[in-house]
Structure formats: C-alpha cells, structure tokens
C-alpha cells in the first residue's frame, strides 16, 4: 500500500494552520517565552508519524508541534498548553518546548540531543514489554554533534532496538551553518555506529512516507534501528521574534539599524587585522542573507504536496475548508474564556 497523499496533505495542513495560529498568538503576546515553529518540517512529521500506532512512542525536540498534531493530540489541549492554561496538555506547566502526552507516549525536550537517549529508552521498553512497537526520535542536524545522541545511536545498534532516528536537516543550528561545525559525512558517521541510513528529501511527503514505512516496519520486525536523514526548511527562522542579529526572521532593512554598533566595533583599534575583520563581516552577511527564508519557498512541503492534488480542486477546497474550520474551532474554544495563564 502506498501513501495516501490526501491524508498526508491534510495532516500537514493541520499542522501548518495550527502553527500559523500559534504565531499570531505569540505575536499578540498571548504566548510567552521562545517560540520555535516546525513550519517547513510538516512533510517529515506527516510522513513518519502517520505510521505510528498505539504503544509506539515519540521523542520530540523544541519543534514538537507538527508530530503531535499528526499523532492526533487534542489541539485544544495543545494550544491551551502554549497559552499557559491550567487546562492545557500539561496543565500549563510545560509550554511549547516541554510538551508531553503520556497517552501517546510522546515526550519533548528542550535540551538539544536529549531525545536520542529518551527514544532509546522508549525502544527498550517496547522490546521488553511490547514487542512490535517502536520508538521514533525527531531532532535536528545541530543535534548530530551532541554526544548523548551519538551514544544513543550506538546503544540502539548494540541492543538492536526498535527505534527510528529522524534527523530533520535544515542546515542550520540557530545562526550556525551545520557544514561549518560538522566534520565528515553524516551518513558515514551514523553508519559508523552500526545504524543503517536512508537519506530522503524531507519536503516530499510521499518519499518520507515510503522511507519511514520500511524503516518502521523493519524496526517492528526486530531488525533494529534505522536512521532517516531528511532535508527540510526552517520557514519561520530559528524562532519567532527579531532573532539573533535582529535579522534572521525579520525584514532585511532592520539589519542596518542593529548593525551600527557592530560596524563601530569593527573599526576599533586593537584586535584582528583588517583581512580577518573582513572575513568576519563577510561571514555575518553571508549568514544573514542565507538565513532569510523567502515567505513563499519553492520547497515549502505543504505547497509541494498541494500542487500534486491540484487536479481535484473541489476535493482540495473541501479539505482545506475543513482544516481551516477545525483550527478556527480550536482557537475559539481555547480562547473562549480569555484563555491563558496570566
């Protein structure tokens, strides 16, 4: 059986619309703290999570929303959690970086890489208590340099655990390009721990679904861990707000204003020579230009999936309206009595 693109698109769109709502609420000041969206990762969430079933577990990182949406977590509870509402998924105690759903065996962590060990533990429990169940860990490319995650790959391999590691490779860790801080080749690195790797375009939901199908199926049947290396995008920057350098996710024009002190600093006496200063400037500017993701990105996974369904515009419109309605209802309920924990 192949992927059901209608189903997958629907899940992706639910996540996208939900996170767009979260973004508005954050900007209105109704959600506090940092806010990392998973926009651009929806194909990975949908392609992987739609294979999960009761007793399967997930370890999530700071972009945990899309997998939870796809997994079927109650969206009102999820939104209330972010609003800090005592009726939230975690009674408002966790917030968006620390989302937990015991019912779905889903745990998030705000510590980069810590999901690796958690997932290994989930998989160990599956191996001993629920054969046939699996665990999935979602994490970014930046996490691939975190020791505990590397150790987790090894543990999974030597214990032949039913765990699928999903690396959402958006080429960035905050403002650092992965390639600048990651030696060698990730595929070889992972294989070097005895874990087989499948690389996949993580903006193509059907490809992800296929790759995940065989990885998860193998894990269920006792073949041990698998690693999906899935490229993706970071459509809303590292997190919402002006971001580092006051530029990453805001209009380029802002750079000039915030760059003045930096400009002055680069002209001060003592320090590196002019060549090195120039290099540093070039690095900063290069970074800023690369980090600014265009609003409508050609690889946007939601748009890509949608374009494949364009041949049936009626069904498409119905689906989209249904999703919009769902999210509207979620918002209405969650915000009904003021919402939030202030």
């Amino acid at each position: 059986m192949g992927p059901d693109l209608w189903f997958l698109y629907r899940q992706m769109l639910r996540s996208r619309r939900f996170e767009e709502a979260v973004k508005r609420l954050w900007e209105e000041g109704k959600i506090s703290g940092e806010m990392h969206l998973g926009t651009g990762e929806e194909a990975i969430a949908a392609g992987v999570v739609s294979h999960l079933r009761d007793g399967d577990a997930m370890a999530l990182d700071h972009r945990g929303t899309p997998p939870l949406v796809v997994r079927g977590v109650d969206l009102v509870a999820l939104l209330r959690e972010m609003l800090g509402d005592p009726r939230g998924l975690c009674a408002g105690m966790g917030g968006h970086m620390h989302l937990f759903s015991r019912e779905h065996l889903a745990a998030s962590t705000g510590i980069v890489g810590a999901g690796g060990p958690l997932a290994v533990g989930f998989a160990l429990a599956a191996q001993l208590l629920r054969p046939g169940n699996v665990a999935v860990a979602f994490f970014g490319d930046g996490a691939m340099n975190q020791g505990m995650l590397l150790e987790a790959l090894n543990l999974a391999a030597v214990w032949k655990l039913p765990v699928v590691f999903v690396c959402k490779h958006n080429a960035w860790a905050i403002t650092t390009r992965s390639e600048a801080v990651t030696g060698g080749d990730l595929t070889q690195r992972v294989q070097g721990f005895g874990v087989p790797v499948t690389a996949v375009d993580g903006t193509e939901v059907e490809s992800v679904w296929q790759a995940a199908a065989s990885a998860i199926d193998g894990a269920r049947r006792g073949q041990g861990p698998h690693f999906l290396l899935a490229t993706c995008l970071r459509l809303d920057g590292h997190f919402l707000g002006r971001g580092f350098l006051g530029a990453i996710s805001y209009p380029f024009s802002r750079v000039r204003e915030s760059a003045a002190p930096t400009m002055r600093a680069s002209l001060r006496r003592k320090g590196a020579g002019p060549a090195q200063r120039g290099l540093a400037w070039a690095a900063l500017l290069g970074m800023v230009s690369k980090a600014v993701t265009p609003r409508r990105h050609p690889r946007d996974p939601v748009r890509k999936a949608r374009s494949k369904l364009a041949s049936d515009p009626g069904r498409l419109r119905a689906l989209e309206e249904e999703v919009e309605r769902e999210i509207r209802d979620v918002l209405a309920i969650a915000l009904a009595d003021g919402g939030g924990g202030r």
Partner: protein
Amino acid sequence: MRSIGFSEAIDAALAQAMAEDERIVLLGEDVHSIHPELFVRFGERRVRATPISEAAFVGAAVGAALAGLRPVVEVMLVDFIAVAADALVNHAAKIEAMSGGTWRVPLVVRATCGGGYGDGGQHEQSLWGWLAHIPGLAVVVPSTPAEAAGLMLGALAYERPVVFLEHKMLSEKWLDLLGGSGRGTVHFDVPAAGARSPARKRWQPMPLGQAVVRREGKDLTIATLGWSVHLALQAAEALTAQGVKAGVVDLRCASPLDRETLCAQVRRTGRLLVVDEDYQGCGLSGELAAVALEAGLSVRFARVCTEQTIPYTPQLERKTLPNVERIVAAAESLLA
C-alpha cells in the same frame, strides 16, 4: 544466623523485587560481573551491560521508565554522574512537573559514593547534597546493610526518580574492588554495624524520608548519613569520657528530608553538629542549619564536612574527609 554484607543485601533486595516485577531491569557498565548473581538468574535481557555512555544510558533509563519499565540504572561511581547530569537534572527530575503531573519517572539510579580508601579527587566524592538540590530527585544514603536493602525496595516503590548511593567504605564488594582490600596488606576499619546485618528471607520496603535516632543524647545532636553515621557514633561514644551525651540522627535520605525527627532532637539539645562527607558549601550541612532555624529553634551549630577536593595521599585524605577526631573537636567547640 547468617549475616549479609552491604552490597549483598542490596542485591538480595533487588533480586527479590526483580523476581516479583518483570518491569525491573538493571542497566550499567559491567553489571554482569558486578552482579553475577542477578545476571545468571535474570539473564541478559534484564541485566544489561552498557557501553561507557553514561549520558545515553541514564537518559535511556528515563525514557524506559516513562514507557513502563522500572529501570535500575547503575553509574559505578557517583562522580561519573556528572557525565549524565543532564538526564537527571533536566529530565528525570523535571518531567513529572513539566507534564503537569501526568507522567512520572519511576527510576532508581544506583551509584557508589564516598572516600577513605585512596582513590582521590575524581573517584571519592559524595555529591548527595548536589543531587538533592534539584527538586524532583530523591537521594538515599543508607548506613547499614539491612536498611540498604529496605531502602532499595522503598526506592523501587517510590514511583519517582531516586538516586541510591552505596558508600564504598561500607560495601564489602567495592572496598575489595577499589580499595584492594583483598591484597591482605591493607585494612580498613569498618564498624560491624555498617558492614553486616542479619540475613533475611524476605526484605520489607522502607519508606524514604524517615530519619532514625541512632543514639539519644541530651547535650548535642549529630546529624549525618551514610558511612559518617558510624564515625558519629564512635565520636559520641568518645565524648562520653568527657561526660557529654551526644545523640546521633541518621537522616538516611538527603532528600526528602525528615525535618521532624531532626528538629525534635535539636529542640532538646539546642546544639546541632552536622557531619556531611559531601562538600560543605551550598550543600546538605547548610540545609540542616536552615531547617533548624526555620523551625524557630535557637541553636548552636557546627559542621564537619569535606571542604576541598579530596586528596589522594592517605594522610590528607583522612584529614579532609570527616573523621572521629574532627567530629569530637567540633562537638567540643559547640559545648565550650
């Protein structure tokens, strides 16, 4: 009656629990040879030797606990817990709270602790106060084999993360392994009450957070735990020569603390002497001072703790760790 050693007792309790609860698994480096009795009985599915990856296997134990197992994860020496601190501090200790109370982490972290046998700075720490600082971690430090067994069962029944510390000076197994007591040319004075207890057919769980008065005394109260309980008892005995009646409270746990038992004693004596093998600053010793003051007690206070990195050389090691002479001297200063 047959008697039983410290580590033997803990393993006996663990075996009893494992026989009754399939969810209990033991993970850690070399567990197959550190606990061969458990290994041959429960097999390598449930007694799993790990690679030297403390961060990952302690983290995995947290995940396993969330997903239905009851892991006992062993970190050989508490010093190495620093390598896995994130799993305890940011995960085990916090997930129940961050999940809004919906998800608990029934995990026991077992480690050896303490010094006095010559391993030096990175291998003889106690760190119970360091761990107890984190809300959400219970820390157990037993002082006799029988109570170690009972507290291990208590820890398994606690349903929340517990760090269970086994003092190496009390452990027949670790003192031989690391102190090399098997060579016959070195000897350690291990008080019988700490080293051996009567064996039992069946161990009963002991609740965490209950201190015990090891010795009544009206002049001052010595509060301590672990190996130092025995030093304190010796010091209390020595103090009788001067007509001083010193009581000894064995806290048994650095967290949760039994404030009541402690304060009831201190209320009577008006003098609190904390003997804490862990580091002095920002630790358990200060906490007990605060507890006494918060109870509104008017108290004279002194402490005997480890104030610096533990030296290797035996003569300085002895001076740096709490010892009977230091305790007696501190008691005298309190009574002066």
